[in-house]
């Protein structure tokens, strides 16, 4: 997947977790959790959905790399 596709995928997942928000307005470096009122449970669901949709293994230790959209794109496009 390209970085743009990954970004779109992340936005889709986020808008189903926090439908009241507009994730597309997120800046790439912004902390997703803070900007969208995502709590730890929501974040876990976000990571699980990313894994299911990309089939990329995401070990717990790497979760902090997924706190921003830039981080998600960089991590999943590796």
């Amino acid at each position, binding site marked *: 997947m390209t970085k743009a596709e990954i970004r779109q995928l992340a936005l889709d997942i986020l*808008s189903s977790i926090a439908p*009241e928000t507009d994730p597309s307005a997120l800046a790439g470096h912004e902390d997703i959790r803070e900007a969208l009122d995502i709590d*730890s449970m929501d974040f876990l669901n976000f990571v699980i959905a990313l894994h299911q949709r990309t089939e990329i293994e995401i070990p*717990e*230790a790497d*979760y*902090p790399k997924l706190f921003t959209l830039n981080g998600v794109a960089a991590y999943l496009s590796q």
Partner: protein
Amino acid sequence: MSRPAHPIEHSSDQITKLSSSFSRVPNLTDYAGEYMRFTWRDAWKLLDGLPGGKGYNIAHEAVDRHAAGPRADRVAIRWLGKSGDRRDFTYRDLSEASNRFANALINLGVLPGERVFVLMGRLPELYVAVLGALKARCVVSPLFSAFGPEPIATRVEIGDGRVLVTTLGLYRRKVESVRAKLPGLAHVIVVGDETFEDAGLHAWSALMETASARFTIAPTDPEDMALLHFTSGTTGRPKGAIHVHGAIAAHHMTGIYALDLHDDDIFWCTADPGWVTGTSYGILAPLTNGVTSVVVEAEFDAQTWYSVLQRERVNVWYTAPTAIRMMMRLGSDVVKSYDLSALRFMASVGEPLNPEAVVWGQEAFGIPFHDNWWQTETGGIMIANFAALPIKPGSMGLPLPGITATIVRHVQDGGVDVIDTPMVEGELALRKGWPSMLRGYLKEEERYRKCFVGDWYLTGDLAKRDSDGYFWFVGRADDVIKSAGHLIGPFEVESALMEHPSIAEAAVIGIPDPTVGEVVKAFVALKPGHEPNEDLRKELLGHARKRLGPAVSPKQIDFRANLPKTRSGKIMRRLLRARELGLPEGDLSTLESDEK
């Protein structure tokens, strides 16, 4: 790591500690003797009281008495900001800053007894505001910053909030839209130096700059209201549990006994001050004991937390099951790569800690987690696994000195009988009269009265006691939901859902979850003309999140054509829960209209 190789013996049902393994002698070694000898009268002697015998004020015990003595230059709060900044506040600094805030409130015309709400993340100003407001003899009510506008408005309204201290971001997102509903809220103090046209909005920095750093706390009766902590029941609106200045005697003693605080300790309580743990143990107990308290602004992340423990040389750590279970997912090898040799004692609260997690502490950190039990109403730790005593993994432990706990069964005339037989389930009850016991639910005399039968305070928790006197949690006697350690009242969630035009009825239950304890799940029946589909589900989820915030909002929403109800129209949450979990449905004699 310099820890002894085998400090602890572990059998299948008990973790026994060898006294040779203690790097410091625990405060409570002779449990039976101390329990027998203890009186609250003696505990009061560990406090100073206001100069001139003018009563007891929490802020004096927590800050001013240390600022006036040899601890003045000791770090009281070590604040670790999100972006890596680190600020130290000595007891003297904290005393002066809280003096300024007390004067600022008085300069605004705020009176003793009036309610000051705080709504912000873990910023230094939060600690200054809480302590300053207590000095001004205002009543402090903490709000969780992950609440949405509705839970905030409800609590400020019930609590007659006169002042709210918050940040500009939170004000704009969560308060502005509901402010018109809160005519009594005269002052909103916004952290920072922004200036405002609105006369009811004040910049923190402007108020603090013009306020004097000198302040004398006026006479304070230990029975004066000090803190208002909101909690939830099954029905009705949130309840504001009243705590008094004298509660500090319990914060102090429980810090010594249950958290094993020693004079030169570095202590870290991970709880947010928006909840009672974060106030009693994130602010008050460490300060009254004169230790250094670490405050971490950032949200949970296991590796960040380990680096805090390592870098700050934390000795005593008080955390929560949800965090511990998330750390377990990451594994013990990661823990072992940090130097946590300063860490001496670890405790957990919020919901029962599963035995695997207690034992995992030992495997990963070399010391077990010590679970303890208390609730908003008790104000402080009541039952605990202690540093020097054997741990029974999965048990909440033994009552603290000064606390009489028992198991009761309800009998027909409205009274209760004490159950003496070990391992028989009943309701956990505490003999009333400890200093941090709630003194009422604000404006809810009837609900308060119902908490007591004779000399017993009834906790609403079902539990049993084994033959060694250890207590074991069984479940809640009501329908409240415990998610990530936070108590959620189903009624508050259902009410917010019902505001959506498509919803005819709603029922909210907790679904067990291996990480957060319970997850909030809603069942909704729609009004005619509305179709259950994915778009509507998302809309409802967004609707609930917008009003309630992520901490309270349901994580799952299911559609039903009809919800099971009694003859009087009461929705049977228990039946929905039993069916959802495949449990026995129980007594269905009151079921009138079944689920479809």
